[in-house]
């Protein structure tokens, strides 16, 4: 994958790119207002970050405690080392229950593990019930944002899609009408479902409970109807105590969408009296990240999406340009951990402006981690050789002040002398849309020296 290329393609439709940027900026603005309502906001971020740091420092203990408590409550806990184990576990639970039709609420983990295609190939019928997720499922594409999966799609396109798939009126793009049509269709899926699969926002070690946040209530509709509930979670979702939820829930929805809390925040402690609860704990590379001190705190992420909404690059390149389940700043870090070679352009898909770091509700130093990944990419010699050589050459030049002066003077005079067509030839990427600065005859140091000399003369005359 090549982010700059994909981004350029996205930006080629300038009107649409502007629309995308403004839609996300609107969410960012709502977040700002929601955060401003809480005077202790920065304190919340600080404490949430500390709790996450503490938890991943004691992850083994907390995972075991969680398993024990959840089991005591009657849940079944499963462990999966990687995506394929996860998918196999889910499939066999479904098979054991004779389940075929599944309703699934939003779970980035199951996206990461590619659960849908796995189950579909095995003959299961799986419906993503979050409206945005369902839209992208019907379009046969991945979500472009972790909280707003269909943020890249225009309502006219949803209208057309629903017209084709659900038989809604042709040409209607009214969100109320389209949502109502989706509701009616999805309601049938809920009522017919044999099992519900959900993600997990938080898992409480102290109590063995899991917490699932939605606005549509689709996770609860799912877990409230069929008796079988499979909850899939990355092992970093653990928090120590129930009371810690106060911090995280205060931060999560405000950061993500600017809401004071999601419409539904469900706490499942054990299965329904008439049902079963299976919790699948998934590693899939997380323990590898844990081992790398520089990148460890990327596991603090609570998947609020704020770093995407605020990222000026994400807003202008779209989630699909990242080519990874999780896009934006945090996605670039996680993708690099998964495969630094395949995703090496992602840490460079940032101007390092640091807005992500300042907005992150759990204080992940996102832009510094992106920079650290760049070092890693260079160290592993993944960065193309010409770039590495260019930087080495520049370094050699800059280590020789006299050579630097000479080189600067010559470059400036050549730049001034050569014809414009040559200066702005196609290799001048800077110059495609921008002028180069007018090249001065004298450098600063030359001017400074001359001035100093003149002053000395004056002093002398006196």
């Amino acid at each position: 994958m090549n982010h700059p290329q994909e981004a350029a393609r996205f930006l080629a439709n300038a009107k649409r790119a502007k629309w995308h940027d403004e839609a996300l900026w609107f969410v960012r603005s709502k977040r700002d207002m929601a955060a401003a309502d809480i005077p202790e906001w920065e304190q919340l971020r600080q404490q949430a970050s500390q709790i996450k740091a503490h938890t991943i420092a004691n992850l083994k203990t907390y995972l075991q405690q969680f398993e024990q408590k959840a089991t005591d409550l009657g849940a079944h806990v499963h462990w999966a080392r990687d995506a394929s184990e996860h998918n196999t576990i889910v499939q066999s639970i479904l098979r054991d229950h004779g389940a075929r039709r599944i309703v699934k609420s939003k779970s980035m983990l199951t996206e990461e593990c590619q659960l849908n295609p796995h189950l579909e190939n095995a003959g299961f019928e799986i419906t993503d019930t979050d409206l945005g997720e369902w839209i992208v499922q019907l379009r046969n594409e991945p979500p472009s944002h972790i909280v707003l999966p269909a943020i890249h799609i225009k309502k006219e396109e949803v209208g057309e899609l629903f017209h084709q798939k659900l038989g809604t009126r042709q040409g209607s793009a009214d969100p109320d009408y389209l949502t109502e049509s989706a509701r009616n269709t999805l309601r049938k899926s809920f009522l017919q479902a044999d099992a519900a699969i959900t993600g997990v926002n938080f898992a409480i070690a102290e109590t063995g409970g899991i917490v699932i946040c939605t606005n549509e209530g689709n996770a609860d509709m799912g877990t409230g109807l069929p008796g079988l509930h499979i909850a899939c979670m990355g092992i970093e979702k653990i928090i120590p105590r129930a009371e810690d939820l106060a911090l995280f829930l205060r931060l999560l929805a405000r950061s993500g969408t600017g809401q004071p809390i999601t419409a539904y925040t469900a706490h499942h402690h054990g299965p329904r009296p008439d049902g079963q609860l299976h919790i699948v704990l998934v590693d899939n590379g997380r323990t590898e990240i844990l081992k790398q001190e520089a990148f460890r705190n990327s596991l603090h992420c609570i998947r609020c999406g704020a770093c995407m909404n605020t990222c000026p690059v994400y807003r202008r390149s779209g989630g699909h340009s990242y080519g990874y389940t999780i896009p934006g700043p945090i996605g670039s870090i996680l993708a690099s951990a998964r495969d630094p070679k395949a995703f090496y352009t992602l840490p460079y898909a940032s101007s390092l402006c640091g807005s992500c770091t300042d907005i992150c509700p759990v204080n992940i130093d996102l832009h510094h981690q992106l920079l650290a990944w760049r070092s890693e990419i260079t160290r592993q010699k993944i960065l193309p050789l010409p770039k590495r050589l260019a930087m080495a050459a520049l370094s050699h030049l800059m280590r020789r002040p006299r050579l630097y002066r000479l080189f600067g003077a010559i470059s400036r005079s050549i730049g001034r002398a050569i014809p414009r067509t040559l200066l702005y030839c196609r290799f001048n990427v800077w110059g495609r849309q921008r002028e180069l600065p007018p090249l001065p005859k004298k450098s600063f140091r030359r001017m400074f020296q001359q001035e100093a000399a003149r002053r000395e003369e004056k002093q002398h005359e006196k």
Partner: protein
Amino acid sequence: MKKNSMKSKQSILDSITDFESAAWELPPRATFGITYDDPIAQFSKILKTVGGTAIRVPNTQALLEELATLDFLAPASNIYSAIPEFLPSTVDLAHTDTPQQLHDLDVALVRGELAVAENGAVWVTDELLRHRVVLFIAEHVILIVSVASVLQNLHEAYEQLSFGKPQYGVFISGPSKTADIEQSLVFGAQGPRTLTVFLLDEEPAA
């Protein structure tokens, strides 16, 4: 499968080294949290912004009067009410074998244990609710909360909640909603189209 899972468990745990460090101490319980001079007003204001309606009533009589004005109640034929004194049930959960049978539920009325001023959320559990799906499958949900149990913020709420036994509990803040189509807010995305919270001054008889 269970055997494989055990092997995976061991392998995952083996690849984690807990690194105890003073720098990563678990911070003590949060002692901060915004408070409001009038938590009831704050709760009502926030609930309104998230699409719900809060109605404060001094006593049962006033509650009954307010209930009578709810326009969705008159045409409702399938009603589940946890408090028959307030609203008679037409649906008997004890004789409803599967939650799917509740598919045409019009209204659900249940009691909320506590409410949070900061975010307009009401805590509801399934302790007395055989099919918790009533909270989601009903077209309209009515929650009854005692004014005395309106708390300032989430920290206060979690101080009161306990999670020792198998139970389902949910914070409900407004009706079901989505903004997945071009950020246009639509209520009744999957679940309830409306949420009405009655804040009752006089503690209802248990």
